[in-house]
């Protein structure tokens, strides 16, 4: 689910940036460091705007200045039960690896409908029900997230397509 979240970040700036364009630097820095970041809990999709750039504080020993910046960002936190669209990145006998945006979702064999079978003899390998459904690399899928496993700087999830309106 997407949220608009207000967050705080401390940026320290090298003294050589001190000058008229300091603000711009800060913005650039913030965007570069934050956008696309994964906290292990959510993904920061986009920094919307800055609510407040605090006063810089020069660190005594280094000369760097620290800015405490409050900003708003759009974040995406995947939830169990959430239905997302994803693209198949690879297909293995054990299941299907997909990417839903920044989130990698694995669909285990158990969570693939029984009529869709693993077909290793085709090139590329695929899951298919020998009718109109073919799942191979690049296929778009709609899946439901079954579980989310947060990691230090990544999120892994497992999903299912074994339900109505999924696949």
């Amino acid at each position, binding site marked *: 689910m997407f949220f608009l979240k207000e967050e705080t970040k401390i940026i320290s700036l090298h003294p050589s*940036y001190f000058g008229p364009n300091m603000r711009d630097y800060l913005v650039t*820095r913030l965007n570069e460091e934050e956008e696309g970041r994964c906290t292990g809990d959510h993904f920061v999709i986009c920094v919307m705007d800055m609510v407040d750039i605090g006063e810089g504080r020069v660190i005594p020993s280094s000369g760097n200045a620290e800015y405490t910046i409050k900003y708003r960002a759009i974040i995406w936190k995947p939830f169990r039960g959430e239905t997302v669209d994803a693209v198949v990145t690879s297909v293995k006998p*054990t299941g299907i*690896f997909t990417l839903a945006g920044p989130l990698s979702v694995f669909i285990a064999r158990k969570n693939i409908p029984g009529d869709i079978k693993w077909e290793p003899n085709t090139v590329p390998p695929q899951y298919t029900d020998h009718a109109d459904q073919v799942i191979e690399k690049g296929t778009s899928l709609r899946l439901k997230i079954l579980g989310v*496993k947060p990691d*230090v700087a990544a999120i892994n999830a*497992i999903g299912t397509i074994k339900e109505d309106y999924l696949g």
Partner: protein
Amino acid sequence: MSNFLNQDFGSEDEDDEFNPAPVDESEGEDSKPAKSQGRQAPGSDDMKDQGDAEEDDVKDGADDDEDDDEDEDEDADEDEDAVEARPRKRRRGPLNPFIDEEAGVDEEEDEAEDDEDELAEFGTEMHPDDFDQLPAGAETDDRRHRQLDRQRELDATMDAEKQAQLLKERYGRNRAAATDALVIPKRLLLPSVEDPSIWGARCKPGKEREVVYSIQKRIEERPAGSRNPIRIISAFERGHLMQGWFYCEARRQADVTESLEGINFYYPSQKMTLVPVKEMPDLLRVQKSEELMPGGWVRIKRGRYQGDLAQIEEVETNGLNVTVRVVPRLDYGMNEDAAALMGPDVKRKRGATNAIRPPQRLFNESEAKKKHAKYLSATSGLGGKSWSYLNDTYIDGFLIKDMRVQHLISKNVNPRLEEVTMFARGGEDGTANLDLASLAETLKNSTAEDSYQPGDPVEVYRGEQQGLIGRTVSTRGDIISLQVTEGDLAGQTIDAPVRTLRKRFREGDHVKVIGGSRYQNELGMVVQVKDDTVTILSDMSMQEITVFSKDLRLSAEMGADGQLGIYDVHDLVQLDAATVACVIKVDRESLRVVDQNGSVRNILPTQIANKIPPRRDAVATDRNGAEIRNGDTVREVYGEQRTGAIRHIHRSYLFLHNKAQAENAGISVVRTTNVVTVSARGGRPTGPDLTKLNPALNMQGPGGGRGAAMPPPSRGRDTLIGKTVAVRKGRYKGLVGIVRDADDKNAQVELYTVNKPVQIDRNILTPKDPITKQTLDSGRGRGRGRGGGGAGGGRVPYGSGAPSGAPGWSGGRTPMAAGDSSRTPAWGGAAASRTPAWGGMSGSRTPAWKNDGSRTSNPYEAGNRTAYGGIGNRTPAWNSGSRTPYDSGSGYDAFASGSRTPAWGGAGAGANTGNRTPAWGGLSNGRDQRDFDDAPTPGGGYSAPTPGAYAAPTPGASAPTPGAWPDSAPTPGAFNAPTPGGMPKRGGYDAPTPAAYDAPTPAMGGAAATPGAGYGDDDGGPRYDDGTPSP
């Protein structure tokens, strides 16, 4: 045994004992005072109910015989009924149900023999229970009697314990028990002080039951109403629980003692103990018999298959006999010969021969046929072929065996997977088909209480609380209290036995396998939950694993599972000096690794030399020369085009990790030369690091430091061209010329002396001032130390320094020296030393130095040198003359002998000639000058010696030098000890160099610092720098 029992207590007897019970009870109830008699029956109930083994034995005998007998009886009855009995019965009308003529002969007999004296009372009434059991109108219908009888018979065949329980329930030993129309609170059924006491007495261990039987017999012989009644109300024993004890219920201890007189195996000598009222119920507590289910797992207690796992095929209705399936241990007569040899002892030794147990193997008829064809017979039944071999039945290769329950262990069976797999029946598709449900059931019996921990989500899946969902709060033994989280009871805390619970997981839960299975410590996410089994997707291998929910636990951990000692999955370990490997799986005792060559093997932790700590900063280059680091994603160029993030870099091998790859835990090995970077971690190439210096500022020019670090190569016209240079080495050494052309390496030099351009390595050219011939800083100055020094020594004299020294003494020469060698000070030292050497000649130069004041001395020495060199003079004559000295410099010998001489010779001649001679001449002059110079300074302190020395040396030098120099003898001799000290050394060296050198050494010794300091003060310092490049 069973036979014996049969004789003693045939089915009839059993009936005797039990069937009348209600009657007695009812009696007792009616006539409460007659307690002792009334109690008797319940007592026997108890007895029955206690006797665990009794039940076996009785059953063994009774069951078979009884069943048969009674069936027959029944049949007979029925027939009778059908034919004639009915009319007779009807005729009888409402009769006592217990006096049933048609109930069979047995019954009548029983009653007759049992209750002779009570017969009067007996029969007039029916026990209310029995009334209850009978439908209305039963009294009038004797058919019901038989029904009742039949029911009792059925009861008799039931599990004795169940029956006992049933009876006990019905005829609780409380006064109130009889009025069981009402529901009686259990506590009222408990014995009180008014009830008879129970006495525990000792007997021979193992003979408890016989004692009880004897007592029983005695009671029968001397019933309550008889002349000498036995006043024991009941007697029982607790079998193996209380070995060597049996218990009697009686009013007084005396009664017991009296009754037990002369009973076999009873130990009257040991004191009887009174069982406290409180403990009475415990004494009689019956453990519920294990319910064995077909398909469950048990272990065999003894015999050839002791300890083997067996699967229950069938449980007979009495719950005592089971048919089990075992993997046979047969040797097919292979060891028989050996056994036969033992002859008559065979029997006795059988145990011993059996000690060598054949391994567990499925039955193989062809092997059996080899030796034991006569024992083998095939029977084909409905379910397929079965073999009969040595009186045992084999089906599908398994031994099918009837066993008694007590020969099986049904608790904590803990079937291991490898054992269980032996039982796996091959499915049609060849896959092993395990009955997980039954396995689960068995395992559940052994559920350790610690498999539930507070906070675990659980579900009650059987029993009256079925369907409740909650979280465990605490565990006490087998009871778990859980807080209900869902449903109407939410918030309440209830208790439930472990066996009715199972852990509850939802799909997507992150769990850890905590025990039991071989997947222990695996982490994964739940993908499917089906009853008791949970399918999880392993984090590591991306494979699906099916385990029981009891073996799982919610896990907060993430990342790598399993550790074996210090080794973790994906660790890099050193196997031997040349082999490293990456751990891909951690089992309980071994590790699975993939080594640098890509081969996978299982190793023990002990085989690992050490663990290679991850190096964050390891860098390699890929095929294109791009930098790759840990964490970067690379792709293989050839072969399988594997991709992955770099886990480890080891020399030229990369260990890649790819989550989408199932095998080897996603690890693959590639060579650095075979990969190209796909993406670098953290977007290294994406832009400047903003945390560092502002790039904008960086653009403005190279930082000083950077410039300093590496001077930019100068381009454009070579600065050397057109310069006057001197050659430092080779055949043109010492010659001076003008550079006409130059490239990176060579310069074309037009030498002054040789009228043609020569190619000379530019590195051995020293730019000179065209006029003064002083060494210039070419800017390309090679600050290289000519430490080799020997040469330097030679140079020293050449010591352009010397020349410069003379005139430009103040500046030129020092730098000269400096110029000669990068290690200016050394040179300085050297030069100085030399000078001092010379000076040293005069006297201990060191002190001289010191005394002079370092600086002064320096100049002096310089001066000395100059002077000595005469070279100072030479300088002017440098162009040409220098050469000579050069030569001499190069070869000290030359210098010493030849040059000097000429010098001398030339001394007078003219410094300008450039010969040493002039130099010498100059020298003398210079010396004089120097001396003058010197003179003043020393004059201060050492004036006397120094000049003296000087004076001396000069001539001395001049004198000895020619001859003595090489020898060095004279010089020292002439002058003083230290110098000679140096001299010999010099001798040690090649003559020339050392000469110069040696001197310095001592000089250094004395005044090492001095020269340095001197230089510094002298302005020598800067000149050093200048000098440095000069060569």
